[in-house]
C-alpha cells in the first residue's frame, strides 16, 4: 500500500511539474501575441501620424537586417550577388537582406510551418499557387494599406496599375506586393518534334485530332520513345485537360475541385466537369490514345523527368506554358536543330488568359518588426534599375551579359544565380532574353490579342465552410478520375458512372451550392 502511494506521489509530482511548464509555455505564447498586436497597432498609429506630416523624411538611421524566404534551391552565386545587393541596399536605405531558400521538393510542407512555428522572418515569396489566400485568411501576412504603400513604396505605388492591387485583394485587403508585368499567360501548349511530323507525312498539329495522329504515329513506329511525357503525375486531372477541356471550351475550373464555369458566362453558372458531354467525348479520345500507346502505361507512377527525356530524345511531345516551353525550345534548337522542335497551340481560337498579378509576389510577415524598411527594400528591388538587374539576373558580365538597356544574353553561369522565385520582382524593367525563341515570342504576340478579361478573373473560392467535402472530392478525383482519364479503366462508361457516384457521396453538390452562392455574391458586388 505504502509503495503504491509513493508511486502515486511521484507521478503527481511529475504531472504538476509538467503542467507548470506547460502553463508557462502558454503564457509566453500569449506574451508574444500581445507583443505582435501592440506592434501592429503601433505601426498603424505611425501611419496616421505620418499622414499628417507626409513630407517628413523616413528615419533610416538604424541599420536593419531583414530575413527573406524564397522558393527554389539556394543559388550557387548567392554570396557574390547578395553581397552586391546588400552593399547597394545599405547605401540607399540602410538595410541588408538574408535570404533563406525552400527547395522545390518540399517547400509545400515547409511553407506553412514557417508561420505555424512563429519563425522570425520579414519577407516571404507568395503567389496564388503558393498559399497566398490561405495565409492571408489565417493571418500570416501583414495587411498593406494604401497609406503605407504610398509612403514606403512610392516608386511601386506610382508604377503599378491600380487593377493589379485590386487583383491581390483578399476580402478587400491587400497582403502582397504583386509582380508588375502583364505579359504572362496561364494557357498551356504543346512542344513536339517537327522531324517526326515530316517523317510520317502528318498534318501540322493545331487541334486535338492532328495531335492524336502524331502521338499514334510515334507510338507505332518509334520503339523506345514515349509519345507524350507527363508534366506531373500527382495532379487530380489529366495533364492535357487544361488544353483539351478547359482552354478548348473556355472553362475555368475552381480550386482543387471538378467544378467550373464558362468564362464568357456573365452569370458564372457552376457545373461539374465530369457531368458534361465534352468530358465524355474526351474520355473516348483518351481511351483510344491510351490503348494505342499514346503515353506510358505507368503514367500514374511516373518517376521520369519529362523535360530531360525530351531533351534526350526519349519523349516525342510535352505540354507546359509558353515561357517554360520557350526555354526548352531554345536549348533543343541549339543541341538538336535537326529535330525541328515546334510549338503547337491545340486550341488556337479560344480565349486566352493573362496571369493575374498574384501569379508572383512578396508578402510581409505579420509579426515582422521592420515592416516599413521591408517595404522600402521591396520598392527598390522592383523599381531601382541596378538593384532590379541584380536580383533578376545576377552580376553583369558573370551571370548575364546586358544587351542595351532592355535585353540580355544568358552566360554559362546564368543558372548559378537564377534558380529561385525572383519572379516576384517582375516589372517593366525586365530585360528580354535575346535567345528566347522567335516562335515563342510569336505565340505570345498572337495570344496577347486574344486575351479575354472577365468579371470572375479575380474571384477566389473560400473553401473553409466545405473543407471536408473539398478534401474528399480531391481524393475521389485522384482515385477514380485520374486512372479513368489515363485510360487504365477497361470499361470507360462504367468507370465514369462510378466516378460520378463517388463524387456525389463525397459531397460535390454541397461544394457546388457554396461556390455558386459565393460567385453570385461576388458578381453582385461588382455589378
Amino acid at each position, binding site marked *: 500500500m*505504502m509503495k503504491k*502511494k*509513493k508511486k502515486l*506521489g*511521484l507521478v503527481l509530482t*511529475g504531472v504538476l511539474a*509538467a503542467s507548470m*511548464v*506547460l502553463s508557462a*509555455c*502558454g503564457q509566453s*505564447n*500569449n506574451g508574444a*501575441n500581445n507583443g505582435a498586436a501592440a506592434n501592429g497597432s503601433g505601426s498603424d498609429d505611425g501611419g496616421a501620424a505620418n499622414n499628417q506630416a507626409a513630407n517628413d523624411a523616413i528615419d533610416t538611421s538604424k541599420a536593419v537586417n531583414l530575413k527573406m524566404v524564397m522558393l527554389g534551391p539556394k543559388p550557387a552565386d548567392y554570396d557574390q550577388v547578395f553581397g552586391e545587393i546588400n552593399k547597394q541596399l545599405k547605401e540607399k536605405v540602410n538595410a541588408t537582406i538574408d535570404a533563406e531558400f525552400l527547395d522545390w521538393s518540399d517547400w*509545400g510542407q515547409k511553407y*506553412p510551418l514557417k*508561420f*505555424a512555428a*512563429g519563425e522570425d522572418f520579414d519577407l516571404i515569396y507568395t503567389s496564388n499557387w503558393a*498559399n497566398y489566400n*490561405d495565409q492571408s485568411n*489565417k*493571418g*500570416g501576412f501583414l495587411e498593406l494599406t494604401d497609406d503605407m504603400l504610398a509612403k514606403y513604396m512610392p516608386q511601386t505605388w506610382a508604377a503599378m496599375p491600380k487593377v493589379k492591387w485590386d487583383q491581390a485583394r483578399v476580402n478587400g485587403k491587400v497582403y502582397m506586393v504583386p509582380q508588375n508585368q502583364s505579359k504572362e499567360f496561364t494557357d498551356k501548349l504543346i512542344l513536339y518534334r517537327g522531324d517526326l511530323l515530316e517523317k510520317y507525312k502528318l498534318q501540322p498539329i493545331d487541334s486535338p485530332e492532328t495531335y492524336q495522329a502524331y502521338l499514334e504515329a510515334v507510338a507505332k513506329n518509334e520503339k523506345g520513345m*514515349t509519345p507524350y511525357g507527363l508534366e506531373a*503525375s*500527382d495532379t487530380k486531372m489529366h495533364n492535357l485537360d487544361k488544353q483539351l477541356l478547359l482552354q478548348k471550351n473556355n472553362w475555368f475550373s475552381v480550386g*482543387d475541385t471538378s467544378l467550373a464555369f464558362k468564362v464568357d458566362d456573365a452569370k458564372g453558372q457552376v457545373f461539374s466537369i465530369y457531368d458534361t458531354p465534352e468530358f465524355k467525348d474526351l474520355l473516348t479520345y483518351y481511351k483510344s490514345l491510351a490503348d494505342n500507346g499514346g503515353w*506510358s*502505361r*505507368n503514367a*500514374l*507512377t511516373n*518517376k521520369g523527368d519529362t523535360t530531360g527525356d525530351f531533351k534526350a530524345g526519349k519523349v516525342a511531345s510535352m505540354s507546359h506554358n509558353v515561357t517554360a516551353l520557350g526555354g526548352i525550345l531554345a536549348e533543343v534548337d541549339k543541341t538538336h536543330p535537326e529535330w525541328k522542335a515546334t510549338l503547337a497551340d491545340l486550341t488556337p481560337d479560344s480565349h486566352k488568359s493573362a496571369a493575374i498579378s498574384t501569379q508572383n509576389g512578396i508578402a510581409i510577415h*505579420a509579426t515582422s518588426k521592420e515592416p516599413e524598411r521591408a517595404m522600402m527594400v521591396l520598392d527598390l528591388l522592383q523599381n531601382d534599375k541596378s538593384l532590379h538587374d541584380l536580383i533578376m539576373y545576377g552580376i553583369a558580365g558573370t551571370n548575364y551579359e546586358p544587351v542595351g538597356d532592355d535585353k540580355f544574353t544568358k552566360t554559362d553561369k546564368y543558372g548559378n544565380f537564377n534558380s529561385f522565385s525572383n519572379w516576384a520582382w517582375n516589372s517593366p524593367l525586365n530585360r528580354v532574353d535575346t535567345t528566347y525563341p522567335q516562335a515563342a515570342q510569336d505565340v505570345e504576340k498572337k495570344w496577347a490579342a486574344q486575351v479575354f478579361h472577365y468579371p470572375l478573373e479575380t474571384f477566389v473560392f473560400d*473553401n473553409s465552410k466545405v*473543407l*471536408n*467535402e*473539398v*478534401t*474528399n472530392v*480531391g*481524393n475521389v478525383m*485522384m*482515385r*477514380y*478520375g*485520374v*486512372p479513368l482519364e489515363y485510360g*487504365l479503366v477497361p470499361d470507360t462508361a462504367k468507370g465514369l458512372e462510378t466516378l460520378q457516384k463517388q463524387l456525389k*457521396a*463525397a*459531397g460535390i453538390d454541397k461544394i457546388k451550392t457554396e461556390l455558386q452562392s459565393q460567385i453570385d455574391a461576388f458578381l453582385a458586388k461588382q455589378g
Partner: protein
Amino acid sequence: MMTEKRHSFWRDVAKYRTLLIMISPAVLLVLLFSYIPMAGIVIAFKQFNYTGGVFGSPWAGFDNFKFFFQSGDAWRVTRNTALYNIGFMVLGNLLQIAAAVLLFEVGGKWFRKIIQSALFLPYFISWVVVGSIAYNFFSYDVGAINNVLASLGMERIDIYNTPAYWPYILVFFHTWKLLGYGTVMYLAAITSIDTEMYEAAEMDGANVFQRIMKVTIPNLIPTFIILALLAVGNIFRGDFGMFYNVIGNNGMLFSATDVIDTFVFRLLMNTNDFGMSSAAGVYQSVLGFVTILAVNYAVRKYDKDRALF
C-alpha cells in the same frame, strides 16, 4: 502519515541520487519530446489560426475528425494499415529469428560478418531509392521483369495497374529492408544465452535441430514478445516513407495500398489544415493506445513477467 510519506520519499531521493541523476537526461528527453508535445492534441479540436495560436484558437469540437469518416474510406484504410503492419511484424520477426539462428550456427567469423553486413545494407537505403528500384523492376515498358518476360516471348504484366500484386511486393520490400537490423538484435539475444545450456544439451546428445528448438528458440521468446509489443503500439501508423515512395499517387492501387498516413496526406495535401491533420494523428494514437493496453493485458494473463507494464 503525510509527513512520514514525504520523509521516506526524500530519503529515497537522497539514497538513490546517483541513479536518479543518471536517469534524469532520459526522463527529461521523454518529458520534452513525448509529454509536453501532447498538449498539442488540443489542435485536433480547434479551428487553428495564427493569431490565436495553439491555445487561443476557437474550439471546433469533433469537426476536424469529420473529413476522415465522411470519406467512407476510414474503415478500409484503417484495416489496410493494421493488416500491413501485422504482416510486416509476423513475417519480419520469423525471418529475422531464422536468419539469426542460422548465422549463429554457421561457423567462420568472417563468413558470418560478411553475411551480416550484406543483410544490414538495405537498412541504409532510403525509401526514395527503393521506390526507384521498384520502378525499374516493375515498370511496364522499361522494367527488368517485363523485359525478361518479353525476351522469353511471354506477355508483359501490368504490375503498376494491378492492385493484387502489391501487398506481396510491399511486404517483400519491408521485410528485405529490415531483415539485417532485426537479425542483429536477435543475434545479440542469442549470444547472451548461457553457453552452459548448450554444453549441457550437447552432453545429453542433442543434435543441431534439437539444440535450436529446445534451447535457442525458447530463450528468444522474451525478446520476441518485447519487440512485438513495441510494434503493436504502432500498428495503426503506416510507414509513410515506404508507401508514399513506392506507390505515390497511383490511384489504380489505392484500394490495396492505402494506409491511414498516405490517405490523410493526400486529402490534406492542398488544404494545409493543421486541425484536420492533428485529428488524424489523434485517431491513430488512440487506436494504438487501446491496442497496446489490450495486448499487454493478454500477455499479462499468459505470463505476468513478460508484460511491458
